[in-house]
């Protein structure tokens, strides 16, 4: 499709700055909530569904001083989960005159169109990751079935909003949620440390990580007077080797209950503890059976970048279509995702 690069009227002599002011969009950190921070590129171009098998077990045993006459056995029950794939497409059309006009702005039009289309597709991937394409199928991390949705209480002074909330109380609230998250997933003990990822709007995480200094009180409080809420959470979590990283996505503004901001707290991959000297591993099945899905949140794609198909069109133009097949964001272990409704 044609492009608009108008003619310029300029004074001479003059200096033409070669650098161009390009529109900056938010660089969403939403994909950090995925296993290994990226989509799984495993789809074939024509795959319409993705299926994952799951096996649950219930083992009965018998314990008695003498040998039992009848031994119970283990019950393994299998099921499978599926999600749909969606094709995201974008098109760019231009001809030699458009390229010439763009070159007056020192701009390479094919590259500009390529990046613009890719950006559009990646933004739709982000939308699918967070909000799903068809939410009735529990697509999208915010719609994950069984996810835990939490609302913060009033702080000790009765404040409810992020901007007024007591910084120390907020830090303790977050740390408590991390404890709930890790204990619900059995991600503790032994040598286990967790990569905890938070996706929130900028105004939430910047307030917590850069502005909200933990206030001094008459009693000893972690980070009081010297650290922000975010700094204190990171510092406390680093003590057992865990990491707590903030990423932003401003589309989460107003997406919580009652117009609050939605904040996603998740551990994208599970780990199994190496318990020193323990031969009796009570999670023998779960920790040993392979191949084992360690991902908590996944999204599938057929390619790392959109497929590009350029085609000549009559009268000297070129049309390029870009397409990528993806699933929506898919939460496989709902214990591993907390959605916090944060009043701003």
């Amino acid at each position, binding site marked *: 499709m044609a492009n608009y690069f108008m003619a310029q009227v300029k004074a001479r002599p003059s200096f033409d700055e070669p650098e161009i002011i390009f*529109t900056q969009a938010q660089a969403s950190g939403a994909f950090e909530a995925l296993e290994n921070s990226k989509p799984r590129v495993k789809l074939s171009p024509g795959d*319409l569904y993705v299926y994952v098998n799951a096996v649950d077990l219930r083992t009965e045993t018998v314990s008695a001083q003498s040998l039992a006459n009848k031994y119970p056995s283990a019950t393994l029950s299998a099921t499978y989960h599926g999600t749909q794939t969606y094709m*995201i497409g974008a098109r760019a059309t231009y001809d030699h005159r458009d390229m010439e006009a763009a070159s007056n702005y020192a701009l390479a039009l094919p590259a500009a169109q390529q990046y613009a289309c890719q950006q559009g597709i990646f933004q739709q991937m982000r939308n699918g990751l967070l909000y799903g394409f068809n939410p009735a199928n529990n697509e999208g991390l915010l719609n994950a079935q069984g996810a835990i949705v939490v609302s913060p209480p009033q702080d000790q002074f009765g404040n409810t909003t992020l901007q007024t909330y007591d910084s120390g109380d907020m830090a303790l609230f977050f740390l408590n949620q991390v404890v709930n998250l890790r204990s619900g997933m059995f991600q503790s003990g032994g040598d286990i440390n967790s990569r905890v990822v938070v996706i929130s709007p900028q105004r939430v995480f910047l307030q917590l990580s850069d502005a909200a200094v933990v206030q001094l009180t008459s009693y000893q409080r972690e980070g009081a007077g010297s650290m922000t809420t975010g700094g204190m959470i990171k510092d406390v979590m680093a003590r057992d080797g865990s990491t707590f990283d903030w990423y932003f996505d401003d589309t989460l503004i107003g997406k919580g209950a009652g117009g609050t901001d939605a904040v996603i707290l998740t551990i994208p991959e599970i780990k199994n503890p190496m318990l020193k000297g323990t031969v009796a591993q009570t999670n023998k099945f779960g920790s040993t059976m392979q191949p084992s899905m360690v991902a908590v949140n996944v999204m599938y794609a057929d390619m790392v970048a959109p497929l590009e198909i350029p085609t000549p069109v009559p009268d000297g133009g070129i049309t390029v279509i870009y397409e990528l097949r993806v699933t929506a964001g898919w939460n496989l272990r709902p214990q591993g995702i907390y959605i916090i409704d944060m009043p701003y």
Partner: protein
Amino acid sequence: MLFIANATKQHRVFYYRSPEAKRPQRLDIPSGRQVAIGATWPHHVIGLVTAQLDSFGAVRVADVRSSRLEKFHGLIYSHDTEIPAEVIEVGHEAVVDHQHRRAASEAAKGAASVDLNMRDQKTGKRTAKSTRVTIKQDVPHNVKPTADDIDMDVSVEEGGGPLRLPE
């Protein structure tokens, strides 16, 4: 007594403060269930806790019955009487409807932003005559397409009408 129902597919944890306790209290409301709290609370305490529910978009049973459920996130409360199952079911439909509108709005905004990125910085004039973004759900060969299949196509053209978001 305050009854609170969770009409979502998600597990809801509601932290609240009430005057008789110094620390915040935790209330777990499993998906599709209702819980009762404050059997011994006087009226003003029920009012205080209800106000905390209100700030997270909770609605009264009467609001569900009269379908005043815009951007509904699934918390329903009732004073003194249990919440009927059909009210929770209606509430759940409203939650799913909101999720659909939210997804469609975000997708449409993303498509429109492709056009925005192609505008001239100074004049705001569009540099492309038209831009177009599609999202399509391919239906397997042996399956009949239905109205529920995802098929979005947003084009921005010169002289086109305004983009109306579903929400």
